[in-house]
């Protein structure tokens, strides 16, 4: 009766942004990225890739509640990089890794 529609898990409603970024007021070079309508599939690979970056001091993701379909990725970097840069770099690296995987399979 109170169950939300299944498409709520992946359809971003009008007016809500898919990705939003909030810098931490109290810690420098720290930020939280909120991604709407995604879960462990994306969250875990981004977190894993961020850990491989040596400029990243802290990287973690969580689902605040299993019935709220979003994830929050928290990133702290050293002075040499900033969270947004680390995040975008991680996504680019993952893209390249998947491209490599695709090529290696097609052969």
């Amino acid at each position, binding site marked *: 009766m109170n169950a939300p529609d299944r498409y709520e898990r992946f359809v971003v409603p009008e007016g809500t942004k898919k990705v939003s970024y*909030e810098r931490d007021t109290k810690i420098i070079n720290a930020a939280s990225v909120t991604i709407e309508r995604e879960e462990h599939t994306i969250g875990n690979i981004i977190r894993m890739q961020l850990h491989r970056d040596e400029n990243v001091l802290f990287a973690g993701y969580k689902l605040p509640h299993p019935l709220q379909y979003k994830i929050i990725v928290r990133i702290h970097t050293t002075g040499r990089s900033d969270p947004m840069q680390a995040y975008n770099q991680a*996504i680019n690296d993952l893209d390249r890794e998947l491209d490599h995987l695709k090529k290696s399979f097609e052969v």
Partner: protein
Amino acid sequence: MPRVKIRELRDDYARFELRDTDASIANALRRVMIAEVPTIAIDLVEIEVNSSVLNDEFIAHRLGLIPLTSDRAMSMRFSRDCDACDGDGQCEFCSVEFHLMAVCRNDETQDVTSSDLISSDHTVVPVDYSESAASIDASDGGGITIVKLRKGQEVKLRAIARKGIGKDHAKWSPAATVTFMYEPEIHINEDLMESLTLEEKKEWVESSPTPVFEIDQVTQQVMVVDAEAYTYDDEVIKKAEAMGKPGLVEINAKQDSFIFTVETTGAIKASQLLLNAIEILKQKLDAVRLSEDTVEADDQFGELGAHMRGG
């Protein structure tokens, strides 16, 4: 950088090794193959006549679960995103129409199957399971049974099939099962093994629920016959300890080597499923990039921005 080596490849089954990558990527691929690779399945059913023993929604449910060949799915649009149709999600770009007309006129029970579904697009048809193994039993080239009719009973309906993903409803999942396991590395301590009698060796080899080890007839040595049959139950290790020989064998899971087993319903070929999954994963990553404007907007309109402006 990841490498793939294919072991076995059939139309609906693939077994391959994925090396030099992390468990999170292997798991992401598994999750996407099951829930986010799009397929086509019947989503809307208009029933004109139904005098069968199954009620309307029962038949509609069964129709939805029939796998349809979905090679078109990756290039098709979702009905909700289609701007070509007049809002009812039934145009030629975003959907495929099916008709089913069956009436039983003789005394025998008539089996209405998925092969009786007539498609408006010859590339999207119910999957044909008749060609390979075991066609001697009930599924003798008839397809999936939808409903059985007695003399005089009739079913006449029109169905619309749409693109969807497994996350929305399991009927759209192209995967029957997708599993992966860590590749095991088994080292037998030969010196300790020598100290066992043949009887003890036999007992130890038998203690494994799956046939991982074998005793070579000629040399009376214990050999690893199928390392991948090992299911990471520690039965052989416990048996070795019980026999008073801890450390008899050392089994490690290689942390960056995975063995995938992919079985599909036939809607998409197994090899194509993996390629589509990689494509979908890339699309998802592209959708979550941060751009300068998202950050600026959040600075301006986010909570911090409001706070800084004294709001």
